[in-house]
């Protein structure tokens, strides 16, 4: 009887403990279908072409241009930016680089990925990639951690023979992200996401006129509210298991109670 009780408690433990692990592997945000991917790139932070994650932005440009795009990244995401440059038919060796900046225009490091690559003479394409660090909900003002907000991608050629300057190239850029989940859930949150120009007051809008903002970027489903993470599940399950283990421990000290064969009142 006691063995059965212990066994069932153990099974329950396993079952409950599997729940938070499942809660961690939530699906990554799906690619947006609304809004077309940009077909032009900007030439500065101010004019960066806005794209969504999961969209492939394209641009035709000249070798030597500095191409800028921006995309939103939210808490718990680990963005990966990939770029492909289609080079002209004949060219000398040239080095291309992908740089990622956050909403404060701070350069963000790549964890993995070839962000700088040299295309040898006559190569048709260069592929670049940059895996950023996980975006945290909060960090100290003195840190350079990635925070939710706008991210800028800059694609450019670093060195080239002067004969190649100005030749036509085509570029493709795509940003995807992996959801890291509760492992990266930190305490605190920003008052507002790091979107440049977010504090600029809007003057009265004229009807029909196109308006300009520094960055109008927002994820499809809005910025996350930060409060939910799988840590709630882990902690709650832990509390429940502790309670069960407490009951189990208590039961062990109680013995089996009155034996069944003893008649009542004996």
């Amino acid at each position: 009887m006691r063995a059965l009780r212990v066994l069932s408690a153990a099974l329950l433990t396993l079952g409950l403990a599997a729940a938070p692990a499942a809660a961690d592997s939530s699906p990554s945000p799906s690619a947006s279908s609304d809004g077309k991917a940009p077909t032009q790139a900007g030439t500065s932070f101010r004019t960066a072409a806005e794209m969504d994650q999961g969209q492939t932005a394209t641009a035709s440009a000249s070798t030597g241009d500095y191409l800028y795009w921006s995309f939103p990244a939210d808490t718990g995401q680990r963005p990966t930016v990939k770029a492909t440059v289609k080079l002209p038919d004949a060219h000398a060796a040239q080095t291309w680089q992908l740089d990622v900046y956050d909403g404060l225009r701070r350069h963000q490091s790549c964890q993995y990925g070839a962000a700088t690559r040299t295309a040898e003479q006559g190569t048709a394409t260069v592929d670049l990639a940059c895996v950023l660090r996980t975006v945290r909900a909060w960090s100290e003002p003195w840190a350079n951690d990635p925070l939710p907000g706008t991210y800028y991608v800059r694609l450019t050629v670093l060195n080239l023979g002067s004969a190649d300057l100005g030749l036509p190239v085509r570029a493709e850029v795509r940003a995807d992200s992996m959801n890291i989940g509760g492992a990266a859930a930190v305490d605190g949150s920003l008052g507002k996401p790091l979107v440049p120009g977010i504090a600029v007051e809007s003057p009265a809008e004229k009807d029909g006129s196109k308006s300009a903002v520094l960055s109008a970027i927002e994820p499809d489903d809005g910025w996350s509210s930060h409060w939910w993470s799988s840590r709630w599940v882990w902690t709650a399950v832990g509390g429940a298991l502790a309670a069960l283990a407490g009951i189990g421990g208590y039961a062990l000290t109680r013995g089996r109670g009155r034996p069944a064969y003893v008649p009542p009142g004996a």
Partner: protein
Amino acid sequence: MIRRQRLAAGVCALLAALAAGIACPGGAAADETEPQPAPKVELVLDVSGSMRTRDIDGGTRMAAAKQAFNEVLDATPEEVELGIRTLGANYRGNDRREGCKDTERLYPVGPLDRTEAKTAVATLAPTGWTPIGPALLKAADDFGNGDGTRRIVLISDGEDTCQPLDPCEVAREIAAKGIGLTIDTLGLVPDAKTRDQLSCIADATGGTYTSVQHKEELTDRVGQLVERAADPVVTPVATEGAGSCAGAPALKSGLYTDREEFGKQRWYKVDVRPGQELRASVSVADDRATNPNYGVLLRAVTQQGREIVRGESAGTGRTDAISTGLRYPKPESDDDNASPETVCLQVTNSFSAAAGVKTTPGMPLELTVDVVDGTSAASDVAAFGLGRGWWLLAALVLTGFVAGLLWGWLSRWRVAVWRTN
């Protein structure tokens, strides 16, 4: 048994409370807008004698340019005010001084009459010199005094023949005078010297340089540049930083532009109330040939000179700009009447000019300032101080088990003591 039920009820209540957790509203991006003045574009076309050369898809360079202009005029967005200026279109003589004055406004910058503009383009015949510098100066004047983005698209097939006025210096001077003026250059079958000169002009104003070998490339690129001008862009506000915090201009949230010379510093002031967060980012563009290692430093300093936070960045190699940023959340204050703190922002750069490059005017500096409500704070490393992972579960289970055992033994002991008494 009763105790067990109570325990179970307690666990259920805890879980329910967690599940129903109070959701905090997420920070939503505000809709800030700004009415836009009409974007202005001027196409500056080289009509010098060399445009007669037949080397673009079997036709003359002039023919390619005319065809491109016709197609671009058809595709120009409504809101764009477009003008056309020529250089070297009229003077046939050999007098350099006369030839270098030869630039003409073919079609004024304003609402576009396509037929009229096309007719004007059709009359052009390759003629004279290549006075790029004077043409750029005149083109900048053509825009008048309005706000909004201004873009010059320069199409040329040869280098400037009117030295010593260096068109590259001219471009830099023009860009330093006004805000939001960009010069994009296109070289038709360029040689090395032309390419250097045209790309230098483009770099000096944050524009782009394109080398054109085929007709379609010319049409596509000019069309793309005109369309780009139509995209609404925030126009920065010109400001002039001071040499020290005391005399610095007070800035509010917005986008600002300034010029900073090599090795000089610029100071600005921003007021931050308790409970607000200051966000500032700066980029310094290298609009001329600089040495390959450089950096920028942005510091937030109190009026007493204490550094609060800094943003710094360094780089190496070819670049258009180097940028950095900082954020300073000022904690909430219990005093409702607490006065705002004046934070001084200091911008320095460590660019150095390459040999033989003029150091004036200063390099373009772009500064964004955002003062947002709601500071950010964290009281724990992990979210809400919660735990996660198998070690946490094991620790909790062990603690619970030991607590259960102790409780059980304690109550047995108590019962035993009670029985013996």
